[in-house]
């Protein structure tokens, strides 16, 4: 059992320090998944906060049947759903803001491509490629079949490769002209 799983069990018994350690260890993954789900940085932060708030009472029921990371990600999916529903009732704000604009780096364009994926593909892609979950784990978090994860990851990649290739071709044309 990893240190994280041990800490999660201690948190379930009421150990505040262990709870903090678990939350801090998982906050990036939770935020990334929320971001993949809601597609907006501000909403993702809101959803991640809501996830951890929910975990305060829910962690008492954690028995370690699943790895604690999957447990938190499942909680994050529900919290993101709630945050999205609330956001739809609010007046619309600026939608997609690519995360890296203030800090350009080599991966900016690739990030933008992921951002443009449909939500269900993006979700499967981020869980498996960014958080490194297996297809089975991702299926558990998403509440769908393993085959669905497999096909969504593939479809996401198809779109990414196509968009990337198209982008490169455009660049070549610009350089030549």
């Amino acid at each position, binding site marked *: 059992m990893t240190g994280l799983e041990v800490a999660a069990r201690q948190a379930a018994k*009421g150990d*505040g320090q262990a*709870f*903090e350690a678990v*939350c*801090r260890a998982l*906050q*990036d993954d*939770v*935020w*990334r998944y929320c*971001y993949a789900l809601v597609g907006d*940085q*501000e*909403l*993702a*932060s*809101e959803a*991640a*906060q*809501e996830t*951890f*708030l929910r*975990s*305060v*009472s829910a962690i008492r029921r954690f028995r370690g049947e699943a790895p604690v990371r999957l447990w938190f990600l499942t909680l994050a999916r529900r919290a993101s759903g709630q945050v999205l529903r609330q956001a739809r009732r609010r007046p619309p704000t600026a939608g997609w803001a690519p*995360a*890296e604009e*203030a*800090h350009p*780096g*080599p*991966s900016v364009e*690739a*990030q933008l491509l*992921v951002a443009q994926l449909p939500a269900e593909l993006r979700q499967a892609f*981020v869980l*498996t*490629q*960014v958080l490194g979950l*297996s*297809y089975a784990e991702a299926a558990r978090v998403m509440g769908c079949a393993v085959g669905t994860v*497999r*096909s969504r*990851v*593939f*479809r996401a*990649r*198809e*779109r*990414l*490769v*196509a968009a*990337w*290739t198209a982008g490169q071709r455009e660049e070549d044309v610009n350089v030549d002209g």
Partner: protein
Amino acid sequence: MSTGDLPAGCARARAWLSAYRDGEDLNDTEAAAHVASCPGCTAWGQTLDGLTGRLRVRPATSLDLVGPALAAWARQPAGRRRRVAVGRLLLGLAGLLGWLLAASRVAGVPPLGPSISAHAGRELAAFEAALSVGFALAAWRPRHADGLLAVAVTVVGFTLVGSAADVLAGRSQLGYEVAHLPLVAGLIGLLLARPGRPPRAVELQPRSLGDGRSPPATPATDSPNHQ
């Protein structure tokens, strides 16, 4: 480009390659042979591998996402423990007093208020005894409190409305109605001791999170929490 434009063999081979790159699908020699012999699929695989390297790096946030949860955690246990303790005490008292009252009726001790028939008195005693046992049970095991709550609310509601009407109409006096205090104490005890979600201690304030702090997203690094 989508699977629709591709020959079935290419589509199947690329789907396999996608899963294979994730270590999910290993035994498909046919698809592997196709990828090796099809220039289009080989190129697709190379673009995919190049792209994967770029996509591994990801934006994260430097915001403190767990602060509100930690604050809620810090407040919740102590406050709740005290609340439950008070609730259980009230439940215990309500159970004991209610049971004594019920027993006194059965034993024929005349009630405080206007007398009722012995038969009605015994029926009333049965109800009081039952509720008292429920209160005592909830004092012992607070997880039973939720189940009893609807019953207690109904009984207390009916009793208080009836008592108020009787007092106002002059059929009873306020002093006689103190006999209902155990009921009310039991209801309050149930509300305090019942398990359930702790009250949310911290308001979500996502809009003000960025104020005075670092920008909402950092360039992707392996330790995105640097401040």
